[in-house]
């Protein structure tokens, strides 16, 4: 672990809400996007002249485009219900990381220019002019929100700070102050098709390498096809799955599942990214442009289904927004929801007895499950509300004998973000990421102490990268985070064993699952 210029927060013995320390994270801000990256996305390269007026105008425009914004800005009563709900507040104790205070950085400007009270009695309602100081605070604190929506669960009006963060980032982009990490990545997706900027030949090479690796390891010729026309399934996965650890083991797991089920499938080099950072910056146009790549790939390859790999915010955009952004998907097989999550596919196959799993293959592990924030609170799996909680857990129980949940208030809809979501998974924000992981790390520590948990199972590329990075700061090891589909893969096709084709099944007549949505 690198020398840190900050202290990792200590585990709290009792979960008392920390006292606030003003300005504790005022210094935290990500690198600013360079002009050419800004311009590629249709934003000004640098802070424009007269940016104050343009920012305020943009705010007014967004209020007319997004009901959420208008209602949320007006409705907050400052009851304080959200003040202790944000992992960044708990980890940093900076009061501007309380969701309501973060919103107020935006709301104070909205009130000044768009409300009667704020125009005429700014001191009374805490309204403020748009100034450079305010912009700097925005840049700092709207990049300390992972858009995880935990606050929205507890707000009596359902106010979601993520919506305000997205709007603030949208306004900043429009006056020329964008964030390097997000905007560079979005540029790569537009140009190449994935966040990593991995071109088709490199991708093909990687996938061929994986095929060899799996064959060597299991004796089963699992394929990882790319751009194969006529496949049944287009699998869209976060590009980190192609090479990062522990992501790639999850990807191998998807391949094993689809192979065993006899489902023909393919990746696409055109849509080789599940994540859609357009959401992080609150920009509909960019988000839509990236979503359309998936539609184009599905049409081009002539697939019948679209399935998404393990990813959190990506699944939100896929489940909740894809139909809106790039639909209608009437050219796909109507027997399946569009899109499906790989967990829905695996779960259906397990339920129908089409995957023979040997959970004892994972007996060396005692696992717990991290509900990714945007899967938990912004999407669903399966046909019933809450399927996003039960489906991954049922898969886990089917392929693992030792599973223990973390404390109830830290899982399911109350789950804590990993600390790296929403466009913050960048090294220039490492202090924030480490501190923001505190609540999750505390919950993990509890099950490690109580049940001897050895592994934290995740179904999101960001969660996996973030945990690999921050686990060591809290006395764990980076390899304690693993992909759900790695465990599935282990239980399905253990390594070091051959002849795994014995329970292979015909590819015919896959029983359609009940329509999930």
């Amino acid at each position, binding site marked *: 672990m690198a020398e840190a210029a900050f202290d990792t927060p200590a585990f709290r013995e009792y979960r008392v809400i920390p006292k*606030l320390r003003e300005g504790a994270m005022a210094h935290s801000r990500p690198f600013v996007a360079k002009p050419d990256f800004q311009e590629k996305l249709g934003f000004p390269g640098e802070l424009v002249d007269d940016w104050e007026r343009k920012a305020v105008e943009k705010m007014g425009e967004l*209020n*007319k*485009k*997004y*009901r*959420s*914004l*208008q*209602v*949320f800005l*007006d*409705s*907050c*009563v*400052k*009851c*304080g*219900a959200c003040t202790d*709900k944000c992992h960044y507040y708990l980890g940093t104790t900076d*009061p501007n990381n*309380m969701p309501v*205070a973060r919103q*107020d950085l935006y709301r104070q400007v909205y009130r000044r220019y768009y*409300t009667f009270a704020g125009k005429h009695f700014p*001191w*009374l*309602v*805490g309204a403020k002019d748009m100034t450079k100081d305010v912009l700097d605070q925005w840049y700092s604190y709207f990049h300390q929100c992972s858009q995880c*929506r935990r606050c*929205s*669960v*507890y*707000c*009596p*009006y*359902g106010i*979601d700070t993520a919506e305000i963060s997205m709007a603030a980032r949208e306004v900043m982009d429009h006056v020329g102050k964008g964030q390097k990490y997000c905007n560079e990545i979005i540029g790569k997706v537009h140009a190449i098709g994935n966040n990593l900027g991995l071109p088709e030949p490199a991708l093909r090479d990687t996938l061929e390498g994986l095929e060899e690796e799996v064959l060597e390891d299991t004796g089963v010729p699992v394929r990882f096809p790319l751009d194969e026309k006529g496949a049944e399934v287009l699998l869209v996965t976060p590009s980190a799955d192609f090479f990062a650890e522990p992501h790639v083991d999850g990807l191998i797991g998807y391949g094993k599942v689809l192979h065993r089920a006899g489902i023909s499938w393919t990746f696409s080099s055109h849509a080789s990214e599940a994540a859609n950072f357009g959401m992080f910056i609150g920009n*509909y*146009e960019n988000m*839509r442009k990236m979503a359309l790549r998936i539609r184009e790939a599905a049409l081009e390859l002539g697939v019948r289904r679209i399935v998404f790999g393990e990813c959190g915010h990506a699944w939100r955009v896929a*489940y*909740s927004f894809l*139909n*809106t952004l790039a*639909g209608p998907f009437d050219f796909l097989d109507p027997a399946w*929801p569009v*899109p499906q999550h790989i967990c829905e596919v695996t779960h259906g196959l397990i339920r129908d007895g089409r995957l023979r799993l040997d959970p004892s293959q994972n007996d060396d592990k005692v696992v717990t499950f991290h509900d990714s924030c945007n899967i*938990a*609170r*912004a*999407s*669903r799996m399966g046909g019933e*509300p*809450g399927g*996003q909680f039960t489906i991954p857990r049922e898969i886990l129980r089917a392929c693992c004998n030792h599973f223990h949940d973390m404390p109830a208030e830290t899982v399911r*809809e109350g789950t804590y973000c990993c600390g790296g979501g929403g466009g913050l998974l960048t090294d220039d924000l490492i202090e924030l990421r480490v501190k923001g992981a505190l609540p999750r790390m505390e919950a993990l520590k509890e099950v490690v102490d109580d049940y001897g948990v050895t592994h934290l199972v995740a179904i999101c590329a960001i969660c996996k990268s973030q945990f690999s990075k921050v686990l060591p700061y809290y006395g764990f090891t980076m390899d304690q985070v693993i992909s759900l589909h790695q465990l599935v893969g282990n239980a399905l096709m253990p390594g070091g064993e051959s002849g795994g084709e014995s329970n292979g099944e015909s590819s015919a007549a896959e029983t359609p699952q009940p*329509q*999930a*949505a």
Partner: protein
Amino acid sequence: MSLLTLSYAVLFYAATALLVGGLAWHILLYRRAPAPLKIPTTPAPTTRRGVVWRMFREVVFFESLFKSSKWTWLFGWLFHFGLLLVLLRHLRYFTQPVWEWVNWLQPAGKYASLMMIAGLAGLWLRRIVVDRVRYISSPSDHLMLLLLLAIGVTGVLMTFVWPVDIVSMKAFFLGLMRLDWQPLPPDPLLAVHLALVAALMIVFPFSKLLHVPGVFFSPTRNQADNPRRKRHVAAWAVKLERSGG
């Protein structure tokens, strides 16, 4: 007509107009702004009926607040339901003959005022004592509680300590409604109570009290979770699609 009667008559006509007009304007604003994306906080109901039930639990039981903070929930609920009963009880001053169920509510409504004051006091105490809530409070947040408390306390004093000429007061309000103006009894406590109520009515549509209509328009609570089954596109997004953007 005395100056007192005249000024209160004008005040209440103006306050009512601002309340109704201001609320209507904001509701129109909320209705007009589209919700371009499906953003219910999940797990969320998948049907319209489920959404109605979710909203009912939210508005009647303050379900989300209950999950969040038991003290805020307790004080908030005491205040809001105390206020509701008090308001319903006050219908007796605006109806002739008084509706049966309002008569029925009369005893509960009288004591609900104490519930309301207890809730408000608790909320204000929290705002002062809890460092996080203190930090997020503007002067207006304190003043709003003070205003409501003052309304409650003057009301309680008239109900339990210094009765006022209710009969003439009712005649005044019925007169306002029937455009047949009657004198307002010159009682200082009543005058203060009514002035504060008028102030509340005026402030209502221009303040955080907009949470009352706002909650019904909150997309995280009022949307059904069915984006895969039903395509949801805002008018401005359709335009964007057509323009090939």
